């Protein structure tokens, strides 16, 4: 058998995985164990590889496989990659562990109660693909889809659920590895990581699917009340199915289905009552998904590069528009301001660009006051409010304390300062025979000046070309002002 796999390595399009597993088998016992795995192992490997090939991930298959040779830990932040990597690694290591401790090929006819088999029960796909126990698997499949019913918006059938899983290689591989090969201890240690990973990739799906996935995951975790319930039910069903297949069934098919229906209802209640389901925020409210967040993040990066406060505030408006749009799309109906602020805060946190604080300060101080009263000012205020909210959360304070005395004082001071400034400006303008166009021009010029002033970040530029332009603009600006002053 081992020899066969060695040869098939060259024949198969995915040679790396297989030899890796076998190569790690250093003792005769392990090799023998692998040979005992037989077809099981072959299918397992297919199972890992084929979905990779089909998926949309930008990494090519060879790259993915190559990755499996390296350490995963240093790349964990690139979660997609790392996820795959760790899966592959664990698949190899753990498959060996599994092999070593469990030589005979597992089958459905194994005694119920073995940890391994019981885990198998939750993984119907593997059974189906492995080409054994199809009949049982088909029935075993049922409880899992029932969980999808809990999903707020969808009413997936069992087949939908399965095809859904098929289309998602990560989760499938994940499922398989966790259930099939991992001994309980390893599994529990790996749980945190897996949880994180799942959370990470969960972002790629629509909220309803995310929730489905969370429920799926929970159902596999025997330590949870819900998971325990599901697992117990699966065990029980297996027994029932066996008897159904025999000549004198204890139950009729209708009874079986009724039992199933009852379980679905109970499981649903359990899930809702137990509080074990802690879906991430994006599954609950209509907040933008990670694509939207990425779009916003890019705009924030761009904002950092611009100098004119007007350009910055225009980008800020685009950011807010992104949030609005994302919310609108998800809800498909009227959304109120009540939803906007939480969404905006969420996006700002997700973007993780602390410089936004300084950007807001910059705009608040430098924007021409007429802008502060307009839409730009409104959304600038909203971002400011969001930041207050976020900062208050940092301090572990309840929402009620989100505007500290200092913050209020600062705000008041700022407001007075800018208002006085506006007043002065207005007065000076009123004393000049300024047409609207001229006034607008000067506003724009002022903004440009401010922008140029702030090229201080690159002093060289400022001292050379920047200074020149700056001087020119200032001259024009002051020229206008002086001209009009003299008129007055």
């Amino acid at each position, binding site marked *: 058998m081992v020899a066969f796999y060695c040869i098939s390595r060259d024949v198969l399009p995915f040679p790396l995985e297989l030899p890796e597993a076998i190569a790690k088998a250093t003792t005769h016992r392990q090799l023998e164990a692998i040979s005992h795995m037989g077809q099981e192992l072959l299918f397992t490997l297919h199972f890992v590889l084929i979905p990779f090939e089909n998926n949309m991930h930008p990494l090519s298959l060879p790259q993915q496989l190559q990755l499996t040779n390296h350490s995963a830990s240093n790349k964990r932040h690139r979660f997609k990659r790392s996820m795959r990597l760790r899966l592959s690694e664990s698949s190899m290591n753990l498959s060996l562990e599994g092999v070593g401790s469990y030589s005979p090929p597992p089958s459905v006819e194994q005694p119920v109660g073995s940890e391994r088999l019981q885990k198998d029960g939750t993984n119907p796909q593997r059974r189906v693909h492995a080409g054994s126990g199809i009949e049982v698997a088909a029935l075993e499949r049922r409880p899992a889809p029932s969980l999808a019913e809990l999903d707020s918006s969808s009413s997936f059938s069992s087949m939908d659920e399965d095809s859904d899983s098929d289309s998602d290689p990560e989760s499938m591989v994940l499922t398989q590895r966790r259930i099939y090969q991992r001994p309980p201890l390893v599994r529990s240690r790996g749980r945190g990581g897996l949880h994180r990973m799942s959370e990470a990739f969960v972002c790629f799906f629509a909220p309803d699917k995310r929730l489905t996935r969370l429920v799926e995951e929970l159902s596999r975790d025997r330590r949870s009340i819900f998971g325990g319930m599901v697992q117990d039910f699966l065990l029980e069903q297996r027994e029932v199915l066996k008897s159904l297949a025999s000549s004198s069934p204890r139950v009729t098919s209708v009874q079986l289905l009724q039992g199933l229906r009852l379980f679905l209802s109970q499981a649903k209640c359990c899930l809702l009552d137990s509080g074990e389901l802690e879906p991430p925020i994006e599954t609950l409210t209509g907040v933008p998904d990670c694509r939207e967040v990425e779009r916003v993040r890019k705009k924030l990066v761009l904002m950092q590069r611009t100098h004119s406060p007007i350009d910055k505030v225009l980008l800020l*408006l685009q950011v*807010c*528009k992104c949030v*609005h*749009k994302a*919310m*609108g*799309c998800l809800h*498909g*109906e*009227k*959304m*109120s*301001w*009540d939803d*906007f*602020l939480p969404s905006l805060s969420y996006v700002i946190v997700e973007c993780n660009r602390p410089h936004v604080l300084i950007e807001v300060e910059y705009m608040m101080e430098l924007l021409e*006051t007429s802008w*502060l*009263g*307009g*839409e730009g000012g*409104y*959304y600038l*205020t*909203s971002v*400011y*409010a969001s930041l*207050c*909210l976020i900062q208050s959360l940092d301090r572990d304070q309840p*929402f*009620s*304390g*989100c*505007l500290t005395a200092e913050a*209020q004082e600062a*705000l*008041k001071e700022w*407001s*007075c300062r*800018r*208002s*006085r400034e*506006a*007043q002065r400006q*207005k*007065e*000076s303008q*009123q*004393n*000049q*025979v300024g047409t609207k166009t001229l006034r607008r021009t000067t506003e724009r010029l002022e903004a440009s000046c401010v922008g140029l002033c702030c090229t201080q970040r690159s002093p060289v530029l400022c001292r050379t070309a920047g200074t020149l332009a700056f001087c020119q603009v200032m001259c024009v600006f002051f020229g206008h002002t002086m001209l009009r*002053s003299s008129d*007055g």
Partner: protein
Amino acid sequence: MAAGGAGGNSGRTYSFKVVLLGEGCVGKTSLVLRYCENKFNDKHITTLQASFLTKKLNITGKRVNLAIWDTAGQERFHALGPIYYRDSNGAILVYDITDEDSFQKVKNWVKELRKMLGNEICLCIVGNKIDLDKDRHVSVEEAESYSESVGAKHYHTSAKLNKGIEELFLDLCKRMMETAQAEERLKGNGASQSASSRRGVQIVDDEPQATPAGGCCSSG
């Protein structure tokens, strides 16, 4: 210390900031959308216009630009209020006539606004959803007497039926204009600088009614 401008311009434009306050679900957003866009329950509001709305009016020959700032209604965002209502010329405090609690929230807002912004801000207390009058939980008398006691005006509206909204905003604008003119007069007399300079949004041009125009030009 100039207040008015040169007499050359034909009219004047007021720019007012109005903040919308009230508990969630009392219909603040619906109210303002109805007013500004004559929409109710529009399903496609995905533009930025949803929370910040503007309206141009012409009242007795005077141009008025209204900027209406919607706010988050939930109690947990209450503390963010000052960020939004700073520099407001007017506040519309909305409650749901079927929800006694939302009326209590309005009372809290009134207290806060009076404390923070004094008497210069024009307050409107608005009982919304009069189409649901059969479920009314806030009595007309109570609401009106309370409003009077705090120097606010009371209105009844229905965003759904488009009732009372035009009147509300028109009235508010007139009051804000009066306040602004009174301030102008004060300033013209050289009395209060701080009161008016606190405001970010104010009269843009020219010709206050009772202010001698000559007094300001010299100060340029």
